[in-house]
C-alpha cells in the first residue's frame, strides 16, 4: 500500500515523525480499500444478478441475515485501534514533547509569517532571542521589529525565506504571524502547523537526511534539482501561491559554518551602519 501511495504522489519522508504519519496514512488507506472493494464487489454482483431482465420478480425480504452488523462493529473496532494505537500517541508527541534548547539541545528558531514571506529569526550565538516590538517593524530595515538593545538581541539575525537546520538534531520552531493566518508546512518532513495571529505556537521535528542526500535520491524523478521548500498551506491573500521559503538541511559542520557566515555578515552590516 505504501508503494501504491508513493506511486500516486506521496513523497518520501525525511523526518523522525515521518514513519508514524506515513504508517497511519497507509493503514487508513487499507481500511478504505477493503471497504470499497467489499462494497464494490457486492454492488456489481447485485447489479448483474438482480437486473430486472434476469430476475423479474423481486424478493420482498431480500437479505435475511444481519451480517452487516458485523461489518459495522468491525469498522468501529478498527477505528478504535487506529485512534488509540496510532492517532492519539502521534498527536500527544506532536503537541506535548516540545523540546527546549536547554534540556534537549534543540535548535530553537522563530518563524514569523507575513504576506507573502517567511521571516526566520535565529537567536545568535548566545541562544537568547531579543525582544520584538510591533512599533519597531519596518518592512525594509527590520521586518520582525527586533529590538537590538534588548537582552540577547544584539547578535540575533534573521533571514527572509531561507531556513537552515542541522540534520539529526531536534528543531523547535516558535511559529507566529504578523498579519493573517498562514500555514507552515514542510511536506517532506510531514510537518504542518497554522500560524495564528496573536499566538505563538511551537512546532518540532528532526530531519533524518541532508538536503544534499535528498537531492541525490531525487535525481531520477520529476523533482530532480528542486530543493526543499517551506509551503504556505493556508490562503493568505493574492500572493498566497508565491509564498514559499527554502529549507536547507545541513550537516552539523555546514550548519555551524552557515551560522558563522551569518554572524560575520551581521558584523559587517553593523560596521557599515555606525
Amino acid at each position, binding site marked *: 500500500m505504501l508503494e501504491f501511495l508513493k506511486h*500516486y*504522489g*506521496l513523497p518520501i519522508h525525511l523526518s523522525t515523525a515521518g514513519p*508514524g504519519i506515513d504508517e*497511519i*496514512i497507509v493503514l*487508513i488507506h487499507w*481500511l*478504505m480499500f477493503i*471497504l*470499497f472493494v467489499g*462494497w*464494490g464487489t457486492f*454492488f456489481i454482483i*447485485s*447489479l448483474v444478478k*438482480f437486473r*430486472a431482465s434476469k*430476475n*423479474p*420478480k*423481486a*424478493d*420482498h*425480504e*431480500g*437479505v435475511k441475515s444481519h451480517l*452487516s452488523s458485523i*461489518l*459495522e462493529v468491525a469498522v*468501529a473496532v478498527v477505528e*478504535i485501534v*487506529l*485512534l488509540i494505537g*496510532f*492517532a492519539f500517541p*502521534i*498527536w500527544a508527541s506532536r*503537541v506535548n514533547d516540545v523540546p527546549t534548547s536547554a534540556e534537549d539541545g534543540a535548535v530553537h528558531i522563530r518563524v514569523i509569517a507575513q*504576506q507573502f514571506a517567511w521571516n526566520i529569526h535565529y537567536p545568535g550565538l548566545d541562544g537568547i532571542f531579543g525582544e520584538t516590538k510591533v*512599533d519597531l517593524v519596518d*518592512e525594509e530595515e527590520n521586518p520582525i521589529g527586533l529590538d537590538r538593545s534588548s537582552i540577547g538581541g544584539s547578535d540575533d539575525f534573521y533571514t527572509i525565506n531561507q531556513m537552515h537546520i542541522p540534520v539529526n538534531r531536534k528543531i523547535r520552531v516558535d511559529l507566529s504571524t504578523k*498579519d*493573517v*493566518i498562514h500555514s507552515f*508546512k514542510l511536506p517532506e518532513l510531514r510537518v*504542518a*502547523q*497554522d500560524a495564528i495571529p*496573536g499566538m505563538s505556537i511551537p512546532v518540532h521535528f528532526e530531519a533524518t537526511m541532508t538536503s544534499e542526500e535528498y537531492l541525490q535520491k531525487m535525481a531520477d*524523478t520529476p*523533482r530532480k534539482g528542486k530543493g526543499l521548500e517551506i*509551503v504556505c*498551506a493556508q*490562503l*493568505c*491573500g493574492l500572493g*498566497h*501561491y508565491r509564498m*514559499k521559503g527554502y529549507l536547507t538541511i545541513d550537516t552539523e559542520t555546514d550548519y555551524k559554518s552557515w551560522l558563522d557566515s551569518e554572524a560575520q555578515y551581521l558584523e559587517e552590516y553593523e560596521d557599515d551602519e555606525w
Partner: protein
Amino acid sequence: MSSHTHHDEPFYRKYIWSTDHKIIGLQYGFTALFFLLVGFVLMMIMRWQLAYPETPVPIIGGLLGDTGILLPETYNALGVMHGTIMIFLGVVPLAVGAFGNYIVPLQIGAPDMAFPKLNAASYWSYLVGGIVMLASFFTPEGPARAGWTGYPPLSVFEPGQTIWLIGMVFIITSSLLGSINFITTIVQLRAPGLSWMRLPFFVWAQLVTAFLLVLAFPPLESAAVLQLMDRVAGTSFFLPSGLVVSGEILNVSGGGSPLLWQHLFWFLAHPEVYVLILPAMGIVSEVIANNTRKPLWGYKSLVFAAVFLGFMSFIVWAHHMFLTGMGTAMSAFFQTTTMIISIPSVIILSALFISLWGASIRFNTPMLFALAFLPMFGIGGLTGLPLGIGASDIYLHDTYYVIGHFHYVVAPGTIFALFAGIYYWYPKMTGRKMSEAIGKLHFWPSFIFMNGIFMPMFIQGLAGVSRRLWDGGLESAHASGVLQWNEFMSISAWLLGLAQLPFIFNVFYSMKFGEKVDENPWDSTTLEWTAPSPPLPHVNFDNIPEVHREAYEYSVPGRKRDFTPQTVPKKG
C-alpha cells in the same frame, strides 16, 4: 377553498407571488439550477488558469482585463464565489428548498406547508441573497476573495467581503424560515394514519436536515454580523492587537480571536455537510426502493442512523481545525466523535447496498443516477477518514486531497442524487416523463467526467499540493511530479459542462414533448403518487388521503401487483 379558484388568478399571483408549496418548490428549483450552472461556469474559468497558467482565457478573456489572463485576485474571488454559490445558492436550495418543498407535503398527504407565507418569504430572502452575491461581481471592489470559509483576519482586510456577508445574512435567514416550516409541517400535517415509522425515508431525511439548519445556522448568522461589524464599525471580535498589515500597524482595540470565527463557522459548516448529504440519501432511498421493487433494507436502522448522524454532526466541527494549535485532549475528543459519526454513515450506505440484494432492478435514468451515488458517496465518505484523524490530517490538511474528498461527497454524490430526483419526480411536476434516451446521454458522460475531475485530486493531494493556488502548483517543488494532471482535470471539467447540455435540453423539451403519463408512472407506493400529476393547485389532493401501510410495500408475496400504495386499506 375551492380547487378551481386558480383559474381566476392572474399569472403573477400564480407563478410569482405564490404561496403554493409546489410553485415555491419550482421557483427554488429553477433558481438553484441556474446558480449551479453559474457556479460551475466560474469553475470552468478557473480551470483554464490551472491547466494553462498565465495564458489568456478564451471566449470570456475580454472581461478579465486587457491581457485576458485570470489574475490571482480574480482567481481567489472566483474560488469564493464558486464555493458559496454551489453550496448556499445551488445544492442546498435544490435539495431542501426545491425537493423538500415540492415533495414533502405530497409525501405526507398535506394540502400545503404549515406556513405558506413564511415559505414564500423564505424563497424571496434566498433570491435576494443570491442577487446580492451576483451583484458583487459588478461592484468596484469585486466579489469576496478571502476563501468561502471567510477566515479572519484576511477576510476583514480583503475587499468585497462586506457584500458577501450581507448576502450570507439573507441566505441564512431564508434557511431559518424554511426549516421552521419543515419541522412544523412534518410534525403537524401528516395525513391520518401516517405514523412516524410509516414515513418515507426522504421525509425523515428532510426533518433531520431542518433541525440541523435551524440549530446550526444561528451561530454563523451571529458570526457573520460580528465580522461585518469588524469591517464597518471598527470592532475587533476576530482581531488580536499587535498586527502589522502591509507595513502598517493595525489600529484596532484588539483582544479578539481569529479562532473564534473558525469555531462558529465550522459549528455550522460541519452540519452543513449533512444538510447536503441527508436529502440526497433520502432521494436515493426513494428511487432505489421504487426501482428495486422491494422495501428498503433495514428501514428502522436507516431512520435511527439518520437521527444519530444529525445529533453527532454538532460535535465534530473542530476536525476542520486540527492544525490551529489544538491540544491533546481536545483533538482526541474531536477525532473520536469524528470516527463515531462514520458509523451511521456506514450503516446507511450498507443498508442501501444490501437493498439491492434480491431485487428486480430497473435501470432507468433516475435509478442510474441513484446507483452511481452509492460508490461515489462511498469514495467521498471513505476519503474523509484520513482527514478526520489528526495524525494523517497533518500531512493532508489543506491539500487537494481535501478538495477531492468533499467534491466526491457533493458533486458525484449529492448532485447525482439531485439529478435522480429530478428525473424521478419530473412526471409528478409536469405529467410527462423526461426522455430516457437523452437522460442516458446525460448520465454516462457525467459519470465518467466527474471521476476524471476529482480522482486525480487525490493524487495531487498525496503529493502535498495545496489548495487555492493560483498557479496550480507550478512554482511548488513538491507538485512537480503531478502537475500533468491539471490539464486532464480541466478538460474533464469542460467536457462535464458539455455533458449537461442534454440535461438542460431534456428539461424543456420534455415539458412539451415528453411521454404523457398517469399519476403513478413508476408504480410507486408513497403518497405523492396518489395525487394527480401535476397535483391540484394549492390543495394537492382531491381528498386528503388516508394511510394504511408502511412506505415501501413492494413485491409482497401473494399479491397480484408488485406494489401496494400506502392508501390501500388492509383487508378485514
